[in-house]
């Protein structure tokens, strides 16, 4: 049944178009402004075309460093990815059955998403202070990132298992496979595309996280914190160039996640 497209369709489509412009427009402006020659400035018009400012990002900076925080963020992102996916897959496996306290644990997980983020930052900071331990990006920072990435990974994995057919598992078990063998040889290969996708999404969540880490990253900044520091100091398009580069980096991670997911699941269907 294909209905005649009504005026409502066209007005909603136009509204949707404007919304997408609202989402991406600002990003496009800084892309344009970062592709300028040495005479470029922070505002339009674009004075000349060039890659000068993108190159500047990798030079020694007076006001901030880009390379080391980037490396830290990569490492932290990888840690968050592995831990979140590991915990979330295990927990979502358990959640396929009701058990005593499951609702409580579910609410604990959800509350991690909706608690005002400043409480996470302050709370972890206070704990470290009381214990007399230095805050650090790979301890307190890691914990803060997990409170954000893990609940999202968990919710997505719950959705994945909702659509998962338990018949394969039962068959394996009927054939005498142990719990571990069933998981390793049947369940994991089947959910692998989603696991890869979720992992990469957790990585970008950590890579871009700012609010929960802002007060507890310790002496060495992660990349978003370094960029935040730059916003007050840097008055050249180098700031936009950093923004363009990290946004392109995030985009490529999302793209890889998407491609990996679709390739993987296509291979499975064959």
């Amino acid at each position, binding site marked *: 049944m294909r209905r005649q497209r009504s005026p409502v369709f066209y007005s909603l489509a136009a*509204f949707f178009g404007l919304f997408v412009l609202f989402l991406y427009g600002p990003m496009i402006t800084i892309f344009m402004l970062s592709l300028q020659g040495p005479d470029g400035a922070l505002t339009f018009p674009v004075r000349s075309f060039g890659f000068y400012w993108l190159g500047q990002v990798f030079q020694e900076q007076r006001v901030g460093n880009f390379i080391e925080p980037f490396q830290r963020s990569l490492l932290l992102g990888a840690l968050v990815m592995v831990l979140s996916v590991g915990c979330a897959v295990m927990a979502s496996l*358990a959640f396929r059955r009701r058990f005593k306290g499951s609702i409580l644990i579910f609410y604990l997980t959800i509350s991690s998403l909706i608690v005002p*983020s400043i409480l996470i930052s302050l709370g972890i900071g206070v704990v470290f*202070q009381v214990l007399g331990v230095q805050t650090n990006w790979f301890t307190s920072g890691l914990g803060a990132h997990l409170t954000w990435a893990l609940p999202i990974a968990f919710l997505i994995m719950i959705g994945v298992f909702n659509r998962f057919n338990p018949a394969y598992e039962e068959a394996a078990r009927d054939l005498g496979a142990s719990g571990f063998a069933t998981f390793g040889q049947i369940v994991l290969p089947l959910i692998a595309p989603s696991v890869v996708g979720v992992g990469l999404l957790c990585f970008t969540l950590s890579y871009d996280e700012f609010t929960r880490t*802002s007060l507890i990253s310790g002496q060495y900044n992660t990349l978003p914190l370094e960029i935040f520091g730059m916003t007050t100091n840097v008055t050249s398009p180098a700031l936009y160039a950093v923004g363009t580069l990290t946004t392109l980096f995030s985009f490529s991670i999302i793209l890889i996640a998407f491609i990996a997911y679709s390739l993987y699941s296509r291979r499975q269907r064959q």
Partner: protein
Amino acid sequence: MTKLGKAVQSYLLVTPQTLVFLLFLLFPIVMIAVVSFWQFNGYAMVPAFSFENYLNVFQSEVTLKTYLNTFKFVALVWLFTLLIGYPVAYFLSFYVEELRWQVILFLVCTIPFWTSNIIRMISWVPLLGKGGLVNQLLLQLNLIQQPLEFLLYSDFAVVLGMVHLYIIFMIAPIFNSLMRIDRTLITAAEDMGASGLQIFQEVILPLSAPGIAIGSIFVVTLVMGEFVTVRLMGGGQAASVGKLIQTQIGSLQYPLAAANAILLLVVTLMLVVSILRVVDIRKEL
């Protein structure tokens, strides 16, 4: 496997995740509550049991003003994310016909959420600044004689920035509940002679209410604790509870910041509970 064995297995599987939340969510919040009764001697916090911090918070005129300002942000951001988010979700779920396109267009809406919030906010500067694109355009069209100052570093900019950052949290749950509506209900309503507007009012809107509620909970809680957007887009003048707490932490007044944080948590929970009282979301979970 025995029933007991299964139960043990479930508990073992949820242990790592639960430990993470106990260590980095629950325990820190408990410590905030404890520290909120401690005292500050000018250098460090001292264990005590005093209500001084809370008295400070409740007697300060700044507190009330800051809360009123934060509520203003919450109300405006909630209203705009709903007014913009609902039509977007409605279009995607009812007017885009192929599932493939629904997925692709929904992903288009989601992608910015996975990129840096800081960069997304900085991106507004060349558009809204004094010499920004919007002002340049308006000046050239002779609509204004002087550049508009309220576009950036103002409450307007704060609300705009937050709507931009958080609208996906409204769209996703509404889209989810709209997609679940049984399409035969719409056909039935049509057959009984309901107009398009009636179908929307009597069928679609009530059935998508849980999605609206979940989205509202996300947006309200995110905005209540906001301090980054307020700092970057508000340019010093704008105030919010989150920013107030952050300033107190900056001057190492942890006990006072803790008392403020506990109040913030209580107020936020009250807002969540009142949303849950209006709409029953259990069906969605």
